[in-house]
């Protein structure tokens, strides 16, 4: 399908058409920040955002999700037997997702959707979701996506790429799902014509993003050498061991499973968890393999920047969205940590 244009005037109409067929999630401003939310009306969608405070991972891996439900009533013959909780897997569109976040879900797929084991909720949500990405034209100073193997115009994981071209949006279908949504909205669009200034815009955006560190240099290092580096001592000092970095991160997928009972009804829930919390690894016996802050801080960075690369023989589990840099209450900056890890003697010039 050739590229199309949707004018600013027609854009709300196009969203409306999508809302007739899909559940549409888009950035919505709430208080000081934006978040991805189910649109109730077209006006809520606000594509004039830099990025959402929280990553959109909650759309695929909610902070708390009911996995199973069960009855504990004595008289119930099925008491104690778990049943899958009903969920809405009707088709949906995520409108305005940034390329870095879409890329993050591809990285997360390596965990949730493997040859042998598939996470049913993740996989179904991924299958029923069409992602309309919005190219990033004014990256933040904390962005470092280009160092992490993605970029402000990266199409990885997207079905459609939208580019703001001033008078409207240019749209390029990247997959069949993407073609479908553009066909649905075709009444609001016109052919893009020959020359779309996408390459120039992409270049301009990429130039704004500095180089943070080279993940390939980390991949080349010996795992245990990095693990045992004295540099962690300095990295970890300020850390409070809160979960802010992990909760805002699009590639932090670790979760906990908990049962909750109210009266004679029970739920098995899964909840975001964080390797920053001591409870994360605490054994029943009281032994904790990562009982110290330094171990937990190291685990987070090593998992993202080293273990993931080694395990999947790929780039790091980081897309350079910069959220953790902004959210950290004590300014622990993954760019600095990555630079340390990548440098020959684990030092940092910043």
């Amino acid at each position: 399908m050739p590229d199309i244009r949707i004018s600013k005037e027609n854009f709300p109409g196009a969203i409306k058409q999508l809302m007739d067929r899909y559940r549409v999630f888009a950035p919505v401003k709430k208080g000081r920040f934006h978040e991805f939310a189910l649109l109730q009306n077209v006006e809520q969608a606000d594509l004039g955002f830099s990025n959402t405070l929280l990553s959109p991972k909650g759309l695929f891996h909610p902070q708390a999700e009911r996995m199973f439900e069960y009855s504990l009533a004595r008289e119930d013959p099925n008491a104690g037997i778990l049943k899958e909780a009903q969920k809405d897997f009707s088709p949906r569109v995520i409108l305005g997702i940034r390329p870095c976040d879409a890329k993050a879900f591809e990285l997360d797929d390596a965990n949730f959707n493997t040859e042998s084991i598939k996470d049913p909720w993740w996989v179904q949500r991924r299958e029923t979701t069409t992602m309309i990405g919005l190219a990033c034209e004014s990256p933040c100073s904390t962005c470092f996506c280009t160092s992490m193997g993605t970029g402000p115009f990266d199409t990885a994981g997207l079905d459609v790429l939208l580019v703001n071209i001033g008078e409207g949006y240019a749209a390029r279908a990247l997959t069949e799902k993407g073609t479908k949504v553009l066909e649905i909205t075709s009444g609001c669009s016109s052919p893009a014509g020959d020359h779309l200034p996408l390459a120039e815009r992409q270049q301009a955006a990429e130039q704004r993003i500095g180089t943070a560190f080279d993940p390939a240099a980390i991949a080349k290092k010996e795992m245990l050498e990095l693990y045992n580096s004295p540099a962690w001592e300095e990295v970890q000092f300020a850390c409070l061991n809160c979960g802010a970095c992990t909760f805002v991160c699009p590639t932090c997928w670790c979760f906990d499973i908990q049962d909750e009972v109210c009266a004679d009804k029970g739920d098995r829930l899964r909840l975001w968890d964080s390797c920053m919390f001591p409870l994360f690894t605490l054994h029943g016996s009281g032994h904790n393999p990562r009982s110290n802050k330094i171990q937990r801080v190291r685990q987070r960075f090593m998992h993202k920047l080293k273990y993931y690369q080694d395990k999947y023989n790929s780039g790091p589990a980081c897309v350079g969205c910069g959220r953790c840099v902004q959210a950290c209450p004590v300014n622990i900056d993954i760019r600095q940590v990555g630079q340390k890890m990548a440098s020959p003697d684990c030092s940092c010039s910043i």
Partner: protein
Amino acid sequence: MSDWEPRIIAFLCNWCSYGAADLAGVSRFQYPPNIRVIRVPCSGRINPKFILAAFRHGVDGVWVSGCHPGDCHYIEGNFYARRKFALLKSQLEYTGIVEPGRLHFSWISSAEGTKFAETASHVVESVKAAGPAQHFVKKQAEVA
């Protein structure tokens, strides 16, 4: 709602109010049956978590009763408790978790069976006036 009866948890100190409840019973003083007693070794044993837990589990009122200040079996347990209760009650009402009339404290010695029955009636009356607790009851989590 007319046949609604409140459920109230009473944390009673073993050395005084619990005895007072006993005395009220053997003396055949009448008081409403809405109270479920949990015996504690001292009002100083009350942790704010207990009170929150009771409300989370859906009780309509909580009543804590201990020895008169100065008469603590452990000399000063209820002196500490007193400060805790003052802050706790004001904070619970300030944050809107507990409406006025749901949370009660009293000092009742083991000799005060009458006072126990009277206070119990008063507690039940005020919790009834506050109506069924709705807002801080833990229900099935509102999650995806």
